[in-house]
């Protein structure tokens, strides 16, 4: 009888410990926006066009603009030409643009980049894990990484070419390309 009682208590304790572990896991895995000034969350993702992966680590030493988008997102369509134009303008300064197409169909994503003449590298994020790491709350959303691999400026929620986002984009780009 004592053994049974003890077993019951151990089982109950294990159940409570399990619930607690799940709660802790949930809290620690919630997506939070990364801190500006802190290291940019690393990722390695499959390219949308062609084969192979692109790792953020491989772009170390360059300023990087990371733009999250989806083919069915209307503001992303409005932003795409401006983003491509900005890429053409800033690439001579050693800036790399990376598009992250998340929660999207591969075919539609490819159509999107083709239609808008996007020439910078674009990666796929089917499960949204990269978007989670950056704490993305909507699309389009743009982040700026300096040559030291740190997030700088303000991340831009919405098209970079609308309203106050224009000046925000210029300021953030200036911080990203600055050589310290």
């Amino acid at each position, binding site marked *: 009888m004592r053994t*049974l009682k003890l077993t*019951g208590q151990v*089982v109950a304790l294990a*159940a409570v410990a399990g619930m607690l572990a799940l709660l802790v896991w949930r809290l620690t895995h919630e997506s939070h926006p990364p801190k500006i000034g802190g290291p940019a969350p690393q990722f390695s993702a499959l390219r949308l066009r062609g084969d192979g992966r692109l790792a953020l680590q491989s772009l170390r030493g360059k300023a990087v603009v990371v733009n999250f988008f*989806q*083919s*069915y*997102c*209307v503001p992303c369509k409005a932003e795409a030409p401006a983003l491509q134009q900005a890429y053409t303008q800033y690439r001579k300064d050693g800036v790399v643009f990376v598009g992250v197409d998340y*929660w*999207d*169909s*591969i075919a*539609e994503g490819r159509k999107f980049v083709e239609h808008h003449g996007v020439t910078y590298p674009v990666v796929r994020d*089917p*499960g*949204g*894990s990269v978007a989670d790491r950056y704490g993305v709350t909507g699309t389009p959303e743009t982040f700026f990484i300096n040559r030291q691999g740190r997030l700088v400026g303000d991340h831009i929620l919405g098209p970079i070419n609308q309203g106050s986002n224009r000046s925000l984009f210029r300021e953030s780009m200036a911080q990203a390309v600055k050589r310290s």
Partner: protein
Amino acid sequence: MRLAALAAVVAAALALSASALGACAKPKVSLAKMEGEVMCPICHTTLDQSDSLAAQQIEQFISARIARCESESQIKTALVANYGTVILAAPPGRGFDLLVWWLPLGGIVLAALLVAFGAWRWRRARVPEPETELDPETERQLDELLARFD
């Protein structure tokens, strides 16, 4: 001979037109069924609850595959390859996700065992109440009292 050749041409034309239209004579699954099992990742609801552009794109994705006579599991595999597992309303029954299915079942079985064990113990602990005997003095007084009512 000429008739046979004509028949072959007509048959080939029909087959070509059917495949060109992407028609499936007998679809293996309906869009309505899939809509209840597939999520719109942006809206966090199933497709049948959403009218967003994302949901519409996913519906087109599914419709195109239904028209190609693909089965439910083939369509779901394609959906996961494109959108990740978040696209499925119910998590896949393998790997770590299996816990979602087995944990509640295990909990119910464990709870039933605990209740059964508790009931068994409770029944065993129930002992008949001992009959209390009155001491002779009290019995005598009670008899006297009752005798007054006779």
